[in-house]
């Protein structure tokens, strides 16, 4: 009376030593699954899915203008993902990049309002960048300080800090810094980042940052400290590290880089400050950082991918009249499948019949 029906249908077992080739196969498969699921959604709107996907590619990479737009979307994502990578490596869940971007942009705008027309353009831009580093840095340092001193919850703290600074900018927008029609005045020409190959030079800044962050994380004493703290707080204390101090320093640096992204967006892309300047970049960057497994070079690819998707979604709406919400569903499906496939990389499933077959074979 061997009761087979009693064994569970699917069991999970941890995988070990999976070949890199198979991991990439799983990753590619997950993207295909997402695209197939997405086609059903597209079909509901009455559009041919292949045509839709083609439009998305064409609309993001198909021409010079489209490509420039795509890169413009990718720049802040990449910069911000680089900013939060050290925090995440340290297992300090900084979800306040949104606010740190805004704080940086605010500080840069302050400099513009004080000094525009009084100093040469290059000096002004450098001062704006420095101010944004300090502004964003302070906005990151505050939750870091409270975490180090009183072990407050950094997730909630950084999140709440977002709303405070966004509120401050919203008030400035309709209050002291109000321009025409409830908006802030555009920056003067000398406060705008120059263009290189048709795109504001922020892309050069973030590409330099990619290398700097990579070296910082992998080859410096501070990067080593961050990695040890992320693995075990007790080990860090055991090794004589000043955990609180390192946390504050890392949060300052992370906030500073986010602040610099705020400056790039304000000065390079928007040409002004608005309360929605971060526009969700601080959150999407978490996805970028996580999908890249905190490797700064992989972040270039992932942020470009998200740029392509966002740009493609826009074109899809204008060209084929597919509502933008449908595109968002597709982006969501893609991200879900890409993150979810990590599960299949770490675990394998054993079906009942297969497990039983093995048993029979061994007898």
């Amino acid at each position: 009376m061997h009761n087979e029906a009693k064994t569970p249908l699917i069991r999970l077992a941890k995988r070990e030593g999976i070949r890199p080739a198979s991991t990439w196969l799983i990753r590619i498969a997950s993207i295909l699954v997402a695209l197939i699921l997405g086609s059903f959604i597209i079909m509901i709107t009455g559009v041919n899915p292949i045509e839709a996907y083609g439009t998305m590619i064409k609309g993001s990479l198909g021409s010079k203008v489209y490509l420039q737009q795509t890169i413009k979307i990718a720049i802040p994502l990449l910069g911000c993902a680089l900013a939060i990578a050290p925090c995440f490596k340290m297992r300090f869940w900084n979800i306040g990049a949104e606010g740190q971007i805004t704080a940086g942009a605010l500080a840069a705008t302050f400099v513009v309002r004080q000094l525009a027309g009084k100093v040469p353009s290059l000096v002004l831009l450098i001062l704006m960048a420095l101010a944004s580093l300090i502004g964003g840095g302070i906005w990151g340092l505050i939750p870091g300080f409270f975490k180090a001193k009183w072990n407050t919850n950094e997730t909630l703290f950084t999140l709440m800090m977002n709303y405070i600074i966004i509120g401050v900018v919203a008030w400035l927008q309709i209050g002291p810094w109000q321009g025409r029609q409830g908006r802030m005045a555009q920056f003067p020409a000398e406060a705008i980042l120059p263009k290189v190959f048709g795109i504001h030079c922020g892309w050069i800044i973030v590409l330099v940052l990619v290398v700097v962050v990579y070296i910082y994380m992998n080859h410096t004493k501070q990067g080593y400290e961050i990695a040890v703290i992320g693995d075990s707080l007790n080990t860090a204390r055991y090794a004589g590290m000043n955990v609180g101090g390192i946390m504050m320093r890392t949060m300052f640096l992370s906030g500073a880089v986010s602040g610099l992204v705020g400056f790039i967006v304000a000065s390079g892309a928007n040409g002004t400050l608005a309360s929605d300047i971060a526009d969700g970049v601080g959150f999407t960057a978490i996805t970028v950082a996580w999908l890249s497994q905190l490797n700064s070079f992989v972040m270039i690819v992932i942020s470009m991918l998200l740029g392509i998707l966002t740009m493609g979604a826009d074109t899809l709406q204008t060209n084929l009249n597919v509502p933008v919400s449908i595109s968002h569903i597709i982006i969501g499906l893609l991200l879900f499948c890409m993150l979810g496939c990590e599960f299949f990389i770490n675990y394998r499933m054993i079906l009942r019949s297969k497990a039983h077959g093995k048993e029979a074979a061994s007898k």
Partner: protein
Amino acid sequence: MAALETVYAIELRNITKRFGSVVANDGICLGLQRGKVLALLGENGSGKTTLMNMLAGIYLPDEGEILADGEPVTIRSPKDSFKYKIGMIHQHFKLVDVFTAAENIVLGLNDGKHDMKAVNAKVREICERYGFDIDPTKKIYDMSVSQKQTVEIVKVLYRGADILILDEPTAVLTPQETERLFDVLRNMRADGKAIVIITHKLNEVMAISDEVAVLRKGKYIGTVKTAETTAQQLTDMMVGRSVTLNIDRPKYENPLPRMKVEGLTCINGEGIKKLKDVSFVAMGGEILGVAGIAGSGQKELLESIAGLCPIANGSILYTPIDGNETQLVGKTPKQIKNAGVALAFVPEDRLGMGLVGSMGMTGNMMLRSWKKGWGPFVNRKDPENLANKIWHDLEVVTPSVDFPVRRMSGGNVQKVLVGREIASAPSVFMSAYAVRGLDINTSYTIYNLMTEQKMRGAAVIFVGEDLDVLLELCDKILVLCGGEVSGIVDARTATKEEIGLLMTTVGGKEAE
């Protein structure tokens, strides 16, 4: 033919269990009989607990079958396991502190409202029958470790278990308490229960079991009758080749005081005194053993010396060979290091405190040297050389010096940690449970390394759990009881019983 076969209460046939590429159990066959005590013997990591967890419904075997009274069964959950009257007492107790013994015993039983009076009466009846001594109305937080264990055993008996599996039950007990537990087990055997005791201590196997089943590296080696075997034969089965069970204890000429601890008192976050007025002297050229029931303040003692545990009161004076005393109290680990105190510390929690699990050997060597050198960049060359040296000298099994230490086996992890600490040429070497979870060979390697440090003139402080080892390895043994020093004895003359008594009493009084 079937009539001639013994019908086992539980029989395991060709059980195989894999975790990823690791084969934890490989085709194991085992039979448990009623009225017998079976000792499941094997080194740490040989698959004893994994095997028993499959009976307890925690894991499901990948291959093979389990028979209960001759019928094939599938045990998918602890509930199934209970259905076949199997009760497992785990190494880590699963009790609710604020409940009474009786409340814990009926916790999770799905039969409506409990009449606590009837429950208490039934618990008392079980206790009387087997010779337990617990008060069912006592709260768990008021109980000693051995009482908590008793509650766990009564819990499975209350639920009608006929087959009891005890996972390393004596690890937390004093010699006297162990004897009491064995009396109870003998009573249960007489009552016709099938008992499995998982252990790696040979003297206990000889004292309590009828049969011994030996596992080695996940493989079933064989079952022998206890009456017909010897400790040496069992060791050989367990290890796979002959090993000598002697620890060398040379004497260091002219030991000098290296560290004087006086009136050390530590209070933890909840305001509980973990150390009370601890005083002792650690001599250079001696191994000072620290004995005590788990949680008697051993961890706090070492961590406070290392600057990792806040100290409420007392003094720790370090005297190097050239004679300038340094006060360690109030210093951070960094300040202690900067003051020139060569302190090596192998903490109990290897991966949680001593090492960085996600890094390789090189990254872990850097833990001691990452600050060295000028400029913002880390020096990887020297740590890498050190890692390579330890890799070869201590025969660490790892594919490369960059392979994450988390994925190494326990013994290799410990070699990495001990190797690094010894490389710093310490004048004080502290280790907590240095051989926990290690196989016999690695354990002896570690003992030898500590003796080497002692002969170098370092003061060695060794927190241990196996009293036999402490008595053979150390020069002096300090016994802790409830955070107090209940005695410091000469390890060459002391007896196990003497230390066992000190473990539960301070100044002649029974400890709380």
